[in-house]
């Protein structure tokens, strides 16, 4: 049997024939351990590209406008998304500052830009230079992109402070929340096998 028609389960190594997908959205699963073998999405490139473009706009807004303000007895603190990182750094906690900077700003930005770099040319039937390396890099970064966890952190912090002072949400907070929804939708509509199938190689 030609090995090009086979796929091995990532969680138990069992071989399967590469499943044929029909319909707008379907998942094929390993028949032994039930792990997802492949998620097929119709019009995956168009959908991912549209959501990624929306994500870039929201990312810029979320990082440029006031995020939260804190008002107590006439004193007000305005913050943007990166304020906490800078303050942590000034307090000598650079380890946490770097961790927060990477997981909530730098890595999501790199992922958005690489997805744009990959999906925009693919939309016009071109394969960008070093596409395989770039796309593999974003897959490696995936576990370290944690914006949705940051949103839970925001909610907890607001509830903690709301009894003590006045908290004023800014434009950036709303676009940050929308950005998380957009990124989740982009991830759900991305069919990485469509990208890999466009890579030319020699066995």
């Amino acid at each position, binding site marked *: 049997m030609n090995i090009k028609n086979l796929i091995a389960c990532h969680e*138990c190594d069992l071989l399967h024939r590469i499943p044929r997908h029909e319909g707008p959205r379907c998942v094929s699963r390993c028949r032994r*351990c039930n792990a997802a073998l492949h998620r097929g999405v119709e019009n995956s490139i168009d959908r991912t590209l549209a959501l990624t473009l929306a994500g870039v706009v929201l990312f810029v807004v979320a990082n440029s406008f006031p995020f939260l303000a804190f008002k107590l007895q006439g004193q007000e603190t305005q913050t943007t998304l990166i304020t906490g990182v800078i*303050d942590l750094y000034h307090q000598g906690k650079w380890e946490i500052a770097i961790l927060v900077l990477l997981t909530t700003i730098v890595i999501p930005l790199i992922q958005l830009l690489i997805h744009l770099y990959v999906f925009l040319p693919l939309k016009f039937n071109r394969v960008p230079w070093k596409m*395989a390396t770039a796309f593999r890099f974003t897959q*490696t970064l995936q576990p370290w992109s944690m914006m949705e966890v940051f949103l*839970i952190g*925001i909610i907890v*912090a607001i509830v*903690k402070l709301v009894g003590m002072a006045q908290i004023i949400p800014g434009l950036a907070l709303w676009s940050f929340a929308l950005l998380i929804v957009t990124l989740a939708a982009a991830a759900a509509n991305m069919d990485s096998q469509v990208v890999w199938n466009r890579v030319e190689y020699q066995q």
Partner: protein
Amino acid sequence: MTDTMRTAVDAGLLSCHSCSLLSREGSGQHAELQCPRCGASLHKRKPNSLARTWALVIAAFICYIPANLLPMTVVTSLGVVQSDTIMSGVIYFLQHGEWPIGLVILLASIVVPLTKLFILIYLLISIQRKSQWRPVERTRLYRITEAIGRWSMTDIYVVTILVALVHLDNLATIEAGVGAIFFGAVVVLTIIAALTFDPREIWDNMESTHD
């Protein structure tokens, strides 16, 4: 279907971790093999997965002790300094009737990291003892540890936002404590531990009986 229960390794194939392409195992075993399609390095199994995961799990446990004993936040309010650990923060919320928030912190900072570490230890031991008990459920346990780990970062982010917002020179300031550094280390170490663990090792013990 003649190859009903054949694995890639049985068939002399290597599955690419990144793009799922199958390659034939070359004769040169020592050379670093690369996936012809995406360039990722190819391995039968993740290299030294048991030893690496053990090392990371033990390191995470060691960091978890100072993470709980040292303060996460240091609040200075009108000259009075108050330090809060993870547990004292949880107790504060529960006592002030904010139990949903107390519960979130309890889950993210205590339940999730400990559950994840204990599941990984159980899986490591079960593989080393060549257990054949319930491989489907053990694989599912692994999937859970992979999915929940990131949510432990919640408390680190709460501290970051508090530090940014509460910045009123003479009234009140909040600083991150040393405990936060250790807690961040626990989260990072457990995420890497889940990445170095190879769930296919659970199934390798099942196959040895077929031969």
